């Protein structure tokens, strides 16, 4: 049985777990290609037109897989912690895909109610049952996968650069180099270092978030805000680049909160959608980094 795994959304953060889990259970997995123009076009074709870029690209990945596998795996992130969720689109993702793309193979989906070990075990147990595996097999696969996931480090923290910027945004915008037009490489070539949210302690994020009147109930909002506010207040970086998808509901709030908290700290908000041109993005990055360099010297 071949299971298709779309390389979109939170795949970038959790692929070691999910790939290893399916592999150890003896299933063949088919992973879609890296995001490219064709996948984006497929996504734009099938997805509802109001959706944001990452969701459209996810649709594209699923569409590119649909004839190559027997099942497509689409997780449903209901909550990441108690009272912490992602975006409603993540909760309704299987339904969105199922009803938007015609002639879909069967979808394997299971709800995730938290990222703690216990909640992930609940998720894995149910997922394994759907694949007709016994408890022992599932347990072994789960423990191994969890260990691999825990030792996996996707974040980036460049040293030895004179100018350093914090790259803020949802994980799939930061790590999908098609969406962000390989911004990390571009910055490094301009001799600018990058730090991502994985390199800030959880306590620092919490202490920034606790200053807010209303605790954000989105995990991404929490991380992005806490990270940006922390590095901004402590001057750990020279500037912040926020990569945001057009019409993202969460970003419309978070960017405002960050701007309020940091006042005149240099922030560049890069909006990406399916029409974003590379030249325009480059010009904006160059202008921003020129400005930072002048401030530093």
């Amino acid at each position, binding site marked *: 049985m071949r299971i298709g795994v779309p390389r979109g959304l939170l795949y970038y953060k959790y692929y070691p777990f999910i790939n290893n889990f399916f592999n150890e259970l003896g299933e063949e997995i088919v992973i879609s290609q890296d995001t490219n123009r064709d996948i984006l076009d497929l996504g734009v074709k099938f997805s*509802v037109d109001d959706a944001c870029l990452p969701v459209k690209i996810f649709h594209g990945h699923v569409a590119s897989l649909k004839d190559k596998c027997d099942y497509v795996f689409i997780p449903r992130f209901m909550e990441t912690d108690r009272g912490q*969720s992602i975006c*409603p689109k993540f909760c309704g993702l299987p*339904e969105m895909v199922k009803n938007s793309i015609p002639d879909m193979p069967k979808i394997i989906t299971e709800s995730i109610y938290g990222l703690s070990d216990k909640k992930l075990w609940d998720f894995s147990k149910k997922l394994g049952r759907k694949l007709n595996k016994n408890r022992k097999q599932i347990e072994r696969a789960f423990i191994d996968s969890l260990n691999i996931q825990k030792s996996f480090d996707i974040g980036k923290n460049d040293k030895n650069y004179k100018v350093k910027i914090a790259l803020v945004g949802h994980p799939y915008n930061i790590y999908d180099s098609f969406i962000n037009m390989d911004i990390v490489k571009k910055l490094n070539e301009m001799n600018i270092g990058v730090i991502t949210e994985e390199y800030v302690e959880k306590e620092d994020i919490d202490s920034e978030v606790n200053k807010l009147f209303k605790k954000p109930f989105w995990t991404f909002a929490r991380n992005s805000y806490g990270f940006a506010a922390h590095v901004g207040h402590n001057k750990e970086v020279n500037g912040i680049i926020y990569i945001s998808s057009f019409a993202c509901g969460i970003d*419309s709030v978070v960017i*405002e909160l960050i701007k309020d908290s940091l006042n005149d700290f240099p922030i560049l908000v890069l909006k990406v959608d399916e029409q974003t041109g590379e030249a325009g993005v480059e010009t904006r990055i160059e202008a921003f980094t020129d400005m930072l360099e002048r401030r530093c010297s």
Partner: protein
Amino acid sequence: MQLVKVTVPHIGNTYLAVKALFNGLGIEYIMPEFNNKDALEIGAKYAPEEICLPFKIMLGNLIQSFKAGADTAIIPGSCGPCRYGEYCEIFKNTLKKMGCDIEIIVVDQPKDIGIKELLNRIGKISSESNKSRNEQLKAVYNAYKVTKLIDYIEGKSRYLAGYELEKGQFKKLLYDCKRDALACEKPLKMIEVLKKYKRSLKSIKIDKNRNPITISIIGEIYTILEPFSNLYVEDKLMDYGVSVKKEISPSWWVKDAALVPLKANSINIRRASKKYLPLYIGGHARECIGEAVLAEKNNMDGVIQIFPLGCMPEIVAKAILPKISKDKDFPIMSLVVDEMTGEAGYTTRIEAFIDLLERRKEKCII
């Protein structure tokens, strides 16, 4: 002790209930101006660029009320995953930056902030009232009664508008009713007036044999309840002689929220939406799907979904609706509104949709 002047942003007809409530409590209530272009313009000017339309209008309401002398605003809260829950934080920041010194009291659900904090926040309001506990409860009860009555009158007259013999009578009654009710100072008087109009609904002559086009309106709760935000779509449909039905109303919301702990809320909607969206994903997406299915089951002619640009839960619903439309051969149209929505284009789409429904029925009503 300095007396507070309270304001609450507009959501549809709730201003009547809010007025009754604060009158009963003996607290001064400053009603924001009725939603208009100015409120939206001020709101859009100071709000974050990509935030949704309800925020912009509500911000406009608050600024206008502040200028009219209000010093405390009460805002119902929620805890996600829809961004409505984050409104209060941005309201606070934006108003502070503008120099509007207005205190914001957020009424959240007890499970998110704890019952103690909720009582504390409500206490801030009720301590301003010099009425006894009994009278306060009475005021809340009266406000609920007002909501129920006005929702009933509005629902009935919108639906019966398709059947009326002389055109425009139900619309006139509805507007007279709102005007007269608002003019009442005392809650009990308001209830009396509403009851009078409820009775007079029956005196308008209707033709039961007529077979008008029936449309169900679904979508994001603010944009379907607040007529300004949806460019008075219901009034337009009323003028065309279309019968309009809308499940969601403030009284529905109160009932739904009260029944949630018992898991007895909107059972019919949950059952209807099971096939297409079996979980609550935030906002009112599940209600939206359920109502679309129910509308087809109840032999309505079509459904119009309305939501503000970028509304996350409704986008999920919008992705599912075409499937329902295809499965059941049932016309569904989605309308997206924001501060740039042009009235002409909007009206054209509604007219085209009605034409389509008409042709499906093979008769002409306009």
